């Protein structure tokens, strides 16, 4: 592979792709001091190691990356070398401007992307949840960056569509690899327990089955079937279980208002909370609380 360097504003190849900030491949044959200090940018950067061994600071932690590894640096995260220079070796990278990526995981890549709204959300969530562990082995990334470059230079029919598809594909591969490396793919009870803990930490959030499935690294259908087999409930019903049991604890503590409890435990509204709660327990949340209060006075 030959070296190249395309940059938004300077390279006319990128004129049709305002979201690509930079795409490059660099063979570094000698150490140049002060060539790579830790910086942060507002774009999402993906570095792929082709050969050599790179000691990088990712998100304030030192890591060593080997050929086939990629590092993903989210907007605002720091990236660079602790020693201030780029190690000897070959590295390719692409910087992409993301329209929106909030800390909660709400992500809008931009009009160029073919990902659906749900898919982007799920990808954003998984990136944010792994934000301190974003370096993985992903050999496919090298070929994708290389193909993007070829498409940009050759400008064959359909190249705008292909370039954007390839960037989407890169995101999809990263997300899938992240969720799969987090799970052994052997121990469902353990994986499910991790999922449950994630859900409990953000119970206020309206989780979708797709998001839960992605966290476990399974497709939605396989996920729903596994959960039903293992827990006896569909994923959403299992989630309602957790929501109501947390709500019961808060109701018994008499500190939070019923409306706040509804929102904290992830119901759309106090109405939704009240109906769901009553269906299962026979009490409305307020009755349930009063009942416990009455007992208190005895």
């Amino acid at each position, binding site marked *: 592979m030959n070296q190249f360097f395309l940059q938004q504003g300077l390279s006319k190849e990128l004129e049709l792709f305002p979201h690509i900030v930079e795409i490059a491949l660099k063979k570094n044959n000698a150490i140049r001091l002060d060539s790579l200090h830790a910086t942060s940018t507002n774009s999402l950067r993906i570095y792929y190691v082709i050969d050599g061994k790179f000691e990088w600071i990712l998100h304030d932690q030192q890591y060593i990356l080997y050929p086939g590894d990629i590092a993903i640096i989210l907007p605002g995260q720091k990236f660079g070398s602790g020693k201030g220079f780029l190690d000897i070796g070959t590295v390719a990278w692409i910087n992409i401007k993301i329209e929106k990526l909030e800390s909660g995981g709400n992500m809008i890549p931009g009009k160029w992307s073919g990902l659906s709204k749900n898919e982007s959300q799920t990808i954003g969530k998984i990136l944010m949840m792994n934000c301190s562990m974003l370096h993985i082995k992903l050999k496919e990334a090298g070929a994708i960056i290389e193909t993007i470059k070829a498409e940009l230079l050759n400008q064959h029919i359909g190249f705008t569509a292909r370039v954007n598809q390839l960037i989407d594909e890169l995101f999809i591969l990263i997300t899938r690899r992240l969720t799969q490396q987090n799970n052994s793919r052997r121990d469902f009870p353990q994986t499910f327990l991790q999922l449950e803990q994630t859900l409990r930490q953000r119970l206020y959030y309206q989780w979708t089955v797709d998001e839960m499935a992605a966290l476990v690294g399974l497709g939605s259908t396989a996920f729903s079937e596994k959960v039903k087999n293992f827990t006896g409930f569909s994923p959403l019903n299992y989630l309602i279980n957790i929501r109501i049991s947390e709500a019961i604890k808060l109701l*018994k503590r008499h500190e939070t208002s019923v409306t706040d409890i509804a929102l904290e435990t992830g119901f759309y509204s106090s109405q939704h909370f009240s109906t769901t709660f009553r269906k299962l327990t026979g009490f409305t949340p307020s009755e349930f609380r009063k009942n416990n209060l009455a007992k208190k006075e005895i």
Partner: protein
Amino acid sequence: MECVITIELGTNAVRAFAFDLTGNPIASMKGSYPTFHVEPDYSEQDPEQIFITMLYVLKNLLNEKIRPQKHKVISICFSASMHSVLAVDKNGVPMGNVITWSDNRGKKEAAALNASSSAKKIYTATGTPIHPMSPLIKIAWIKNNDKEKFKKASKFLSLKTYIIQQLTGRYFIDYSLASATGLLNIKTVNWEPDALDYAGIDAAKLPELVPVFHSPGKLLKAYQTSLGLPAGVKIIIGSSDGCLATLGAGVWEEGKATITIEDSGAVRIVGKKVLQDEKQRFFNYLLTKNCYISGGPTNNGGVIFDWFAKQFGEFKNAFDIEHSMELLINEACKVDVGSEGLLFLPYLLGERAPIWNANARGCYFGLNINHNRSHFIRATIEGILYEIYSIGKTLQEHRSIKSLSVNGSFASIPFCAQIIADMFNKPLYVSKSDSIGLGAFLLSAIEMGIYKDLDEAAQTVVLPDNYKPDRQNHSVYNNYFKIFESLSVKLFDEFENISNLQHKKG
């Protein structure tokens, strides 16, 4: 048709069954809940989550399977895992999670009590081995390590006590579950003063004691409404999973033993007398007054085979452990009985009966250059079952066993059942249905007058032996077992040393 519902609050899940009045299961449903390990020795569960899961499962069972068939529910009978402890405050609100049977935080307290002069007296009076599993030890741990909680706690409940209190409004514990707390005198059937002293509580801190047939009262109005059950449905407090599994397996006469292997395992016998063991190796739990279920528990049952499959099994599809286990068993079948001299000590989780050594660790022994992967698979399964046999063998120092009844997901795998028959050299039958649920049904049926007593009820589930022992295999196993047995005690010092090093590292 009239039916009885049984609710089993198990280790990982609640299971609800409906039986017709002749004891045939007509419907079932389950819902699982997690166990949290906030520290390595801790095992806790969320009592509200278990309550809600139980309600949800019961409601779904009624709506989807009972009402459409126009069945009429007569009674609901409960069973639960043993040894759980839940502290509640003066308003009855849980103070944190329920501590489950597998929690080991009380290791120091257990060792201290075991070393003291009152150990033997307390064990003899209560029938529960002095071990971190015992609620006696757990409450003592809270007293020593969480003084605030100990002071504020108005009661220490079992999980089942809490669930039934939520449904009916009152705190009860049956003699049977209470006999596994280490706090009940199994002869007087009252709380044992010495044990209460050690735990630092008085009887008022514990639920009221009642027989297993007792009805704690009607369902609260709200639950009658939400579940759609009439006020007349009788709630029966029931017993523990261990005792009901024994009843439900039809083991109710001398000369019979029951073997249960799920994740953990146990060998149990039934008798009118307490089994007095000098070395304090066995539990003696009560089902009803003067009816004792005695035996020994192992930590290392099917959970060890699970571990093996996860590490070394093949996974064609993500998380498909069932398929992976099937392949392993097929491979193990091809190896000769005795794994050509490869032995496995299964003590990955420390061990309870018969060696009662929390420091015990796993070990493959006898490895030679001709052993391959398949030998490891078979040796692993045989090791788990040698351990079961070693419990059975110590029991036979006290009682003779003529035949076995086997249940639980691991023990009822045909390959395992045959090995058990061969090791024990006894005929055995594998129970068909869930024996805990069936045991709870039998209790309800006695309460309703369908059977006159436990003996008559248990006789209805006796099945013909369907596995016969092979004498030749028995003698092969027996020779290897001698080495297994001697290793399990001989390595005492090494177990302690390696466990100390492992703890340091962690």
